Every structure is written in structure tokens, then in C-alpha cells.
């Protein structure tokens, strides 16, 4: 069950493969096929997949009282993956293991904050952005730095890649939340129904406070479609898109100080292009 869910999740989620891609592209070209890079990529994938399995359980929310044995399998499978990731990262030594452990802890803290904010229509955009930086930002920052670390990068490069990862992580999170507005039946939209209010929703509330009155409780079907329509009408998507572009631009700027990072800049542009494509 765990394997099936990991595979299914990997197909649906962009962030896992994005982290692995950043990790590999962050390494020097001659290093990319070395076992240490593969071990680091495994560790990042395991971290992302393990925590995503847990996230999916949280996203289910209180529903029909049936029972799903897959919940327990996913929960324990997620823990298993975290252990597996720790084993992989240990192959890279002290500094990499410390980076990985620290990022993992940050991501969990971000998820806790998000959980505490469920159904809180008063959540501010600033709080969303700081939490996204702590969560997705930490994952992509870890990926970027691990790749470079394996190539013997200096502190200045690592600091630039940290900023790159954090900015791009926020952008990727916004992109995932914008997907809620594409189709009310998509998982991202259902997450809004389950109380997870992303940046498009929060910015729409700023423009049209009446939207908050529609939220704050479990929504599905027509109620959810109505709320999402109001979010669209209030310009939530456009304003979130602007923030996404600012973050992508910030990520690209962070790379200015580092040479040989053209492929990372392309990955960042890809997040923006994906948004434009969806808009069309």
C-alpha cells in the first residue's frame, strides 16, 4: 500500500521531482552521476515522499466513518521513508546529515503551523508566506545546497543557493495552491474545502472580506465551488500569481552571484512558465 501511494503521489506531485532535479542540477556537471549525488537525491526524495504520505492523511479530514487500512500503512510507511532517508544522507557525512535533519525538522514545524491554522480564514498572507518558506522553502533549499555541497561548494555559494531554494519553494507552494482555482474537483481545491487556505484565497479575502464568511467550515460541492468562484472574482489568482513571479525573480537573482547555475535558473523559470501555461 505504501509503495502504491508513493508512486501515485510522485506522479501527482511536482515538488518531489523538483527537489531531485534541483539537487542534481545544483551539483557540478562532473559530479552529477556520482553515487554521493544519488544518495543525496534518495534522501531528499525519501523526506519529501515520507512527509507527503503523512500530509495526504491530514488532507483527508474528518469524513465518512468507514475506515481505511491504508491510513495506517501510509502513516507507518512515511516514518519508514524518513528512516531510509536518514540512512542515505549519512553516506554524505556530518554537514549533509545536519542539513538534512535541520530541514526535516523545519518542514514538520511548518506542517504543524498549517495544521493549527486550518479553517482560519483570518490567517494573514504574511503568515502563509513565512510558513511556506519554512516548509517548501526548506525542502528546496536543502536540495540546492546538498547538490552543491557534494561538489565542494564554498559558503558564499551555499548561502546563495539557500536563498534560491527558499524563494523557489514559496513559488512552488503558491503554484500548487493556485491549482485549486483551476477545477473544484482537483485535490488542491478539495484542500480548500478541508480548511487549508492558500495564498490565492487569503489575498482574495483581503480584497473581499465577505469571502471569509463562506469559509471557516468544511466545504464541498456547490459551497466549495461558490467560494472558489468568489476567490477568482476577487482577483485572488492574479495577486497570488504576482507574488509567485516576484519569488521566481528573487530565486533567479539569488543565482546572480554564483556561476554555472544556468540550469537552476531554467528550473525556476519553468515554475513561472507552468503558471502562464495554466492561465492560457
Amino acid at each position, binding site marked *: 500500500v505504501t509503495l502504491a501511494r508513493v508512486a501515485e503521489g510522485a506522479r501527482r506531485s511536482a515538488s518531489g521531482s523538483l527537489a531531485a532535479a534541483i539537487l542534481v542540477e545544483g551539483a557540478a556537471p562532473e559530479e552529477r552521476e556520482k553515487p554521493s549525488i544519488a544518495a543525496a537525491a534518495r534522501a531528499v526524495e525519501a523526506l519529501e515522499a515520507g512527509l507527503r504520505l*503523512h500530509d495526504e*492523511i*491530514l488532507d*483527508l*479530514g*474528518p*469524513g*465518512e*466513518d*468507514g*475506515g*481505511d*487500512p*491504508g*491510513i*495506517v*500503512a501510509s*502513516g*507507518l*510507511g*512515511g*516514518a*519508514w521513508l*524518513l*528512516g*531510509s*532517508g*536518514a*540512512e*542515505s*544522507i*549519512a*553516506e554524505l*557525512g*556530518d554537514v549533509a*546529515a*545536519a542539513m*538534512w*535533519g*535541520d530541514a*526535516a*525538522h523545519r*518542514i*514538520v*514545524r511548518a*506542517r*504543524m*503551523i498549517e*495544521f*493549527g491554522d*486550518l*479553517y*482560519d480564514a*483570518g490567517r*494573514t498572507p*504574511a*503568515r502563509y508566506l513565512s510558513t511556506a518558506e519554512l516548509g517548501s522553502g526548506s525542502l528546496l533549499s536543502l536540495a540546492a545546497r546538498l547538490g552543491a555541497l557534494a561538489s565542494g561548494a564554498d559558503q558564499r555559494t551555499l548561502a546563495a543557493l539557500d536563498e534560491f531554494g527558499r524563494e523557489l519553494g514559496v513559488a512552488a507552494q503558491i503554484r500548487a495552491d493556485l491549482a485549486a482555482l483551476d477545477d473544484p474537483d482537483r485535490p488542491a481545491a478539495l484542500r480548500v474545502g478541508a480548511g487549508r487556505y492558500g495564498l490565492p484565497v487569503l489575498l482574495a479575502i483581503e480584497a473581499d*472580506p465577505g469571502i*471569509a464568511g463562506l469559509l471557516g*467550515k468544511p466545504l464541498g460541492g456547490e459551497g466549495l465551488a461558490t467560494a472558489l468562484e468568489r476567490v477568482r472574482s476577487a482577483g485572488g489568482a492574479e495577486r497570488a500569481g504576482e507574488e509567485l513571479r516576484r519569488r521566481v525573480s528573487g530565486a533567479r537573482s539569488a543565482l546572480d552571484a554564483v556561476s554555472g547555475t544556468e540550469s537552476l535558473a531554467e528550473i525556476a523559470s519553468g515554475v513561472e512558465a507552468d503558471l502562464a501555461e495554466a492561465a492560457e
Partner: protein
Amino acid sequence: VSERAPIVDQAEVVVVGGGPAGSVAAATLAELGRDVLIVDQSSFPREKPCGDGLTHSAVEVLEELGLQALAEEGQPVEDCRIVIAHGTETKGWYRPPDRIPRSRFMRTVPRRDLDQSLLDAALERGARFAQARVDEPVIEDGEARGILLSKPGGAERIDARYVIAADGATSRMRRASGIGGETAGSQVYAVRQYFTTQESLDPVFDVYVPLLYEGGLLAGYGWVFPIAEWRANVGVAYYGPPAGRPRARIRRVLDAFVGELRERQAGRFGELSDPSRPIGSPIAVHFSPDRCELGNLLFCGEAARTADPLTGEGISFSMRSARAAALAADRALRTGARPALGRTVGREFPRLGQNLSLLTRVAVGAADGFALSEAEHQRFVLAVRRVTGSAPDEPGLEATPVRELLADEDERFAESLDHVNERLLDSLRTEFPFGLETLHREVRAGAGPVAAGCALAAAGAHGDELGDRAVAAAQAAELVALADRCFPRLSPRMGSHVAWLNNAMSLLLGDLALTAALGVAVDARARCAAELGAAIRRIAEGEMLDADDLYDPGRTIERCLESLAARAGSWGFLAARLGAIASGRSDDIDAVGRYGRDLVVAHQIAEDVRDLLVGEELTRRRPGSDLREGAYTLPVAYAIEADPELRDGLSSPLSGADAGAVVVRIRESGGVEQAAAECRRFADRAAEAAAELAAPRGEALIALAGLPAARLEQVLGSPAEAATHG
């Protein structure tokens, strides 16, 4: 302005605010012989918005101040009743710890009287009082030099070596000092009004949820507290939106609540008459340990935002933080050392600073629709009680068997365990609701921090000092053991808010503990991360075995032992090896690992027997909890082997009475004794391994190997007695 302002007075310590926090700080300092001046803009006595409730913790502080008479004159409160939607009622919510005598149970004392008495007590001890409006602290070269008063003729200045800000939820000192900490998150508001009731009041405080307003629900509660036999303090507290957003008009919320009481609780209170003027204020929650002090400017009480984020209760926290501030100031004046107030207060009140609004929202959600079934309601009540029931007043490890045992061997182990405990508290402290509280209760439950003890004993056996690496190894090991207690609580059911909350907590707290362990492990040595990862995988595999076997009466003894080896064995193995690696030991590290594995398997069997027979008070597990949850442990497997008919009825959940009958049959079949014998076999093997490893300083390893048998003996008697009594 401060340079031009005339200096009109000076004191060693100036306390801004004459409420409970200010008066307690001043009284404490005056008693220590300090020259202390309280400054408050009010003349006393004065009214103050509050529920007037003094918890047993607050009564305890009053006793320490010699003011027990004040508490005794208050109205006694013996219970808390929760009323849901003016329909279902449950009592029994006020459950002080067993150590609290009845004389220290909760009381209500109107704040007008309480604050006056506390101020009088401070003045009697030698503190001075000045009535004036304080504008801001005088800060020069980063140090507080005193305070600036606002006077009609211009600013005046009072000089001081230390300044304690106790000026309440809307603290001017806090704003003026720029210490920050105000949050964009939800804000709490409260308002109260006194009424005379037609019916006499029970010694019970009533809490009403949900809180209705204009046809919707607010996240909060209404209360009715008896302050005399015929006089009640009636009020509401609720979470509003973040500052700057439109919120409900607080007076109208109270009016709506009083209207509901008149309409739907007329039988309990009769007519509510003679209302006082309603008064309200924000409640300062969102405590942060790193925002309690700015050099020699210390914050306490609600100026340090110490109110309980769930209940809004603030007096005991205010008084305790004030004592901590006063003692810190006195120590600093004596020794010149900088106070570490935030850390002290943070350690004393670990649950502060956590945003508990989630729980309120869950409460609202559960009560939504006013259609809770009786069973669902009970489950909800149990879940909330589990979360809120026993906040760790003393989050140390002093009373845990592991610490006592190791302290008997060598005091340095006890010191290191305390250090591990501090680090555990730090690594688990997040913004999130009750995470730390729940997890730390697990650390203290049962025998206490066995994994940490095992790691320290293994590190100490090498003969080196127990340094930071050993402490980090012990912390990481204990965090992994904690995660092993979280994940198995996952349930396949997600149908209710309670089940969903249970699963969410299991995952989030498990992940928090695991990732904290990973972060810490590399502080010990890099190799620890690999050891830790492998152990986590094996533990997860063991948990999967157990999940597969839930409610399976065909579970064999071999399967139980397999699971014990995978779960308990793995974290025992890990703990001992981490300790050894941290101390630089490399020669017999596999033997150390085997010691840890056997020790912790023995420990787990002993705890499984105890769960069956006596349960665990701290984590509120009743006897037979594993059995009722379908987790058939070793004594059950042995019993089924001896008495196969026991299988009947074990393939689905048992009622409480049925579980009791099954426990009796398990005992009669000899299952408990056989499991106990198995436990002793593992413990003996650990003791043998310890004897071989002991040189040069491994006595702690040997002592720890005796722990499982001692835990068993507490519930079964000695092996000889057990044999005699069957």
C-alpha cells in the same frame, strides 16, 4: 525627555503595575530586603475584568506568600461542568492532581478584593506605592535606568537598577520598549458582568460551548462562576480575528450569552438581577520565552503574555512569572549575572506560547449542529481531557524510576538526564498546540526516559565524562522512543473530529520527534544519523506487524517476540549504541547494542504487563488499555496458548466489563507469570552483558538491568510471592 525630566524618586527595583503580578513581584523583593517601589495609575481598590477564579496553582502561590486566609475566604469551587448547546452536560472536568489537598482546591475571589489584599501584603512587607501614570522605561546605553512618569506639569523620572513591567495585557512598557511579540494571529477577548441569582449557586463553575452570536458560532466559551451563594460572575471569552480585522462587538456577545442563560438556564439560576457594569479587555496570550526581558527590564504577568491560551486563565501564571522575575532581579543584583527569565518562565510553563485555538475550534466543530450522539460526545470529552487534563506543572524527571535509579549510582547521571530533559523540552517546543505537553507526558510516564538513561549509562561505562555528545545521543534516543509511541496510535477510522484529530496528532507529533532526533543525532557523531535511520526503519516495520495483528486472537508468542525485537529492541539497541559511539567507544559496540536491545525488550514486557494490570495514570491509560485497543501483547499470547477459548471474543473491540473478565482469565491461565518470566530472562541477559561491559565504570548499566524486574515486582510482588499467590 528622560534627560530633562526631574528625578523624583529612586529605588533598587521599580515595579510598574499593582495587579497580582506587580504586587507578588514587589512582595517577593521586599521580603528579600530590596528597596522596591510599585507604580500604578489606579487608586485601589479598583474593578478589573476577570473570571475571578483562583486555580489550585494560584492558591498555592497565595499560601507561599502567607495569604492562605484570603483564599480560604473565597467561594469554594469543587467541580467544573461543561454545558454543550444548553443541552448535554458533563461534570468532573475539574480534576486537580492527587498531590493537591482539598484545602488548596480552586476558589473564586473578586479581583477588587484580591488585588487590594495582594497590594496590602506587598506594602506590609516594606514595598512602597506611588500612584502615577507610567509612560515608558528610560533606556540608556541599552540598559533600563528607570521609568518616565506622565504628569500634568511635565514628565518626571524615577531611577532604578531594575525595572519589572507588570502592567497587564495592554502593557505600555511592552509597546514602548519595542520588545515585540505581538502576533498577527488570533486575539483573545473577554468581558464579564456580575449578577445576583434567584437560585443558590452550586460550588461549580459552568462553561458553556458553543458561543453563539448573531446566528453563528464564535471560537470561545461562556462562563458562570459563583462568587457568593447568590452572586455570579458571568462572562465570555473568545478568539477574535487577528488585529485589524473586524471582530464581534464584545458587549453584544456578552448580552447574547446572558440572553441565552435567561432563556435556557432559568431553572438553574432563576432571575438574573442587579447587574454590575460590564467590563472587558483583551487577554494576552502568545507567550514567548525570548520576549520576557530586555537586559534589566523584565516582563511578567500578562505584560509577558502569560495567560493560558486555551482558557484565558491568567492569575496563577501571572503570580508565578512575577515571582520568577523578582527572584531573577534579586539574583542579578546580588551577583551581577544577567537573568535568564524567559528560560526560567518558559521551563516553568511549557504549555504557554502554544496556540491552543485549534482545540477551541475542534470543540466548536464537535458541538456544531447540536447533534452529538452520546458515544461521540463521550469520546470527545475523553479526547479533550487527555489533551488538557494534566499540564506538567513540574516538567522535571525527578520522580521517574530511571532517574532515581541512575542518581543512586552516580549523581552525574541525574545531572545529565536533567540536561537531556531541558534539551528535549527545547526541541519539542513549537508554536503548535499541546505538542510538547503530550510528548513530555510520554517521557515521564512509566519508568521514565529509559532510552535516554540507557544511552547515558552506555556512554558513562566508557569512563569518560558525560559530555555534550552523550547528552545529544541520549536526547536523540529518547526522541526515537517517543516517535514509537506516537505512530502506533494511528487509526484507520477518520469518521469523526476526534478520530481525525487523533490521527493528525499521531503523525505530527511522531514526525516532530523523529525529525528532532535526526537533527540532534548528528550533534553526537555523523555515524549516529545512519544508526538512527536504520533503527527508525526497523521500528516502523515492527509497528506495521502490530498494525496487521490488531484484534487478531491468532497472534502467536513468536510474533509478539518478533514485534518486541523490531520495536523496543531496535530503540534499545540504538540508544545503547548511540551512547557508546558518543563516548568514543568502538571495541565492543555490538555487545553494547545487544545489552540495550535485551534491556528494553525486558522493559517493554514489564510495561505491557503493567498496562494490563494497573494502567498508567500520567497518560490516562486505564488497566487493559492495550487489550481493549486490540493490541494483544505477550501476556495475552501466552494466555491464549494456555487457554485457547480465550480467542473467542477477541476479534473485535471489548467493552470495559468484558475486558475486565478477560484480564481475570489471562491471570488465571498463567499468561502474566509466563510473560514476567520472559521479561526476567531478557533482563538477566542484559545484566550478564552489562557485567562483561562494566569495566571501568559500568555500574549504571548493571543497575538499569534491574529496572524491569523492579517494575514487575511493584505489581506482581517478588517472583516467590507471585508463585505463592498464583
